[in-house]
């Protein structure tokens, strides 16, 4: 665990708090949209893991890159995507980030450096290294962050990409969101040994943090980003976190792979939003009223974004053949 001092100013922590609340409220609304039959497709919720996306992206510049996963709403929002256009994409509407062609699992937003969520587990681990190689060849100091879950630890592409990133000192940071379950299978049944030993064997510096504590995630991400930006090569950040909900919204009966008690305990004791809120109050960086104000503002933003998306038009049917080729 890191022992770094807290290195952000109060307004930055409040910003991160607001960003986590935004992701939580967005996803609660996604759950509602899905269960009420208004949203087509699939929904994989990020609730409980907000500190990983927010702590990491807070350490990035707008022109840095991220690649994301099938559980990607949190990453997109943390990197700066707007709520209204994300809702529109989830509903398959024209003003959505991808004009309704990507949906929940494929939101991309080059304006904020988001190279896309990816529905193939581990599928973006090479793309992130490629973005890092590109930054190096173009002589910029951009970095790329590759988010992936513990499920991707079983995908060979991850190791091919990390090997090349290490050989060529590419500015890419592999952020493992270890939420303990790959779909419906406990991580212990799917990956052997210590996840950190794998990048360590390639000579990649690794860090292990409490992924429920955004302060720890942010501090570690800052170190890895700074090193990568200065030419120090790749990093690996193992974030221990927890998926509060099911693999996807329809995964309701979960007792065959994890207990109700375990879920309750995480929600009660390890909620990243609550942990930061309490910490800020204890350190007198904010009072309860300030946090409530943030939440109220975010809820208003979510409601407005949803209203926008529900009222937005679907794409013209003729759009179906556009963008097959550039």
């Amino acid at each position, binding site marked *: 665990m890191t022992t770094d001092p807290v290195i952000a100013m109060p307004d930055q922590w409040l910003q991160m708090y607001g960003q986590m609340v935004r992701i939580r409220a967005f996803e609660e609304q996604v759950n509602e949209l899905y269960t009420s039959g208004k949203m087509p497709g699939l929904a994989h919720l990020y609730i409980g893991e907000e500190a990983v996306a927010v702590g990491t992206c807070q350490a990035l510049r707008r022109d840095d890159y991220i690649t994301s996963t099938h559980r990607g709403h949190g990453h997109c929002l943390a990197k700066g995507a707007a709520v209204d256009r994300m809702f529109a994409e989830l509903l398959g509407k024209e003003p959505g980030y991808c004009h309704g062609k990507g949906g929940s699992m494929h939101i991309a937003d*080059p304006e904020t450096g988001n190279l*896309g969520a990816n529905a193939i587990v581990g599928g973006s681990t090479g793309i992130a290294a490629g973005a890092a190689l590109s930054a190096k060849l*173009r002589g910029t100091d951009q970095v790329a962050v590759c988010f992936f879950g513990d499920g991707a630890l079983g995908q060979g592409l991850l190791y*091919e990409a990390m090997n090349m990133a290490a050989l060529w000192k590419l500015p890419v940071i592999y952020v493992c969101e270890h939420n303990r379950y790959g779909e419906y299978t406990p991580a212990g049944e799917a990956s052997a040994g210590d996840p950190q030993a794998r990048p360590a064997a390639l000579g990649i510096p690794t860090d292990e943090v409490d992924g429920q504590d955004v302060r720890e995630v942010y501090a570690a991400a800052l170190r890895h980003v700074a090193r990568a930006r200065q030419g120090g090569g790749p990093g690996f950040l193992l974030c221990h976190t927890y998926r509060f909900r099911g693999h996807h919204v329809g995964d309701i009966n979960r007792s065959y792979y994890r207990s109700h008690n375990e879920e309750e305990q995480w929600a009660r004791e390890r909620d990243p939003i609550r942990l930061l809120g309490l910490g800020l109050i204890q350190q007198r960086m904010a009072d309860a009223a300030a946090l409530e104000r943030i939440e109220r503002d975010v809820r208003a933003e979510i409601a407005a974004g949803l209203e926008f998306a529900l009222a937005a038009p679907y794409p013209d049917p003729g759009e179906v053949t556009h963008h097959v080729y*550039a």
Partner: protein
Amino acid sequence: MSMLSQAPAGAPRAAGRELTFGQAIKEALAEEMRREPRVFIIGEDVAEAGTVFKVLSGLVDEFGRERVIDSPISEAGITGIGVGAAMTGMRPVVDIMFGDFITLAMDQIVNQAAKVHYMSGGKLRVPLVIRTTMGATRRSAAQHSQSLYAWVAHVPGLKVVLPATPADAKGLLKSAIRDDNPVVFFEDKMMYQVKGLVPDGEYTIPLGVADVKRAGTDVTIVATSSMVQVALEAAGRLDGTGISAEVVDPRTLLPLDAETLIASAQKTGRVIVVDEGYQQYGVTAEIASVIAAGAFDSLDAPVARMGAMNVPVPFSPVLEDQTVPTAEAVATVAMRLCGRA
């Protein structure tokens, strides 16, 4: 012997030099790398070794190891890196040594490269070229001999190029590098030493324009890549029997120049499609169907298909040589179509 029956569009017809297919590929890469600093090459043994086929020999001396990057043996990884680099402003050329090995990179080709532009609603582009090889008859057996371009051509969002002459290889590769889409470029490894006339000066050949390699009136032989030379030999044999064969090379499978293929079929009334990929569910089926639909009223016989046998490519020369269409076999089918056998 010149394999070039027509100078490419925009090329000076008279001037030209004899180059091998491999030299033409290298010249295209060198010219594009000089013209555009964002072009780089990544692949296994591409730098000092110049690839296992020596096609890139010397490029690293001019462009350095930053732009001619030797990679580990990681086909999926280098393809993914190519996709990511292409999405962020570079124009990578990924070298996959043997076409058989695209299997290892299929997720990156099919689910990533081909989909990024569409899934992002047109916001992201993947100007990526994957150069790889194809073709049997090198006694390399089943894992180094396949022609798997039909796999790639099945997927929307990709372009697929099959050059058959040094001049085509150069002009098509330059277009592929300048294209804003992922292009998979299949080179016949048996052809690297074949010489042909390559125009002097700057030229490109657009993707999606077929080439009539030989004009004729009685039967059309549509032939791809390695089979173009086979078709031209068959046409030569048919000359002796009084059958005038036209040889049409689509040059690119995606996009496919259906118009030129259909026009030739309408002219001759009889068509054979010859290709080195496996015949089952293969390129010949797609092309035969396009021609049948477009030229039905002009056809005097069903379109004939000749592809590789539906067996893994065997090692023994006695066995392997049976598996791909030969000029003799093509001529025999043409005679039958024309009612001479």
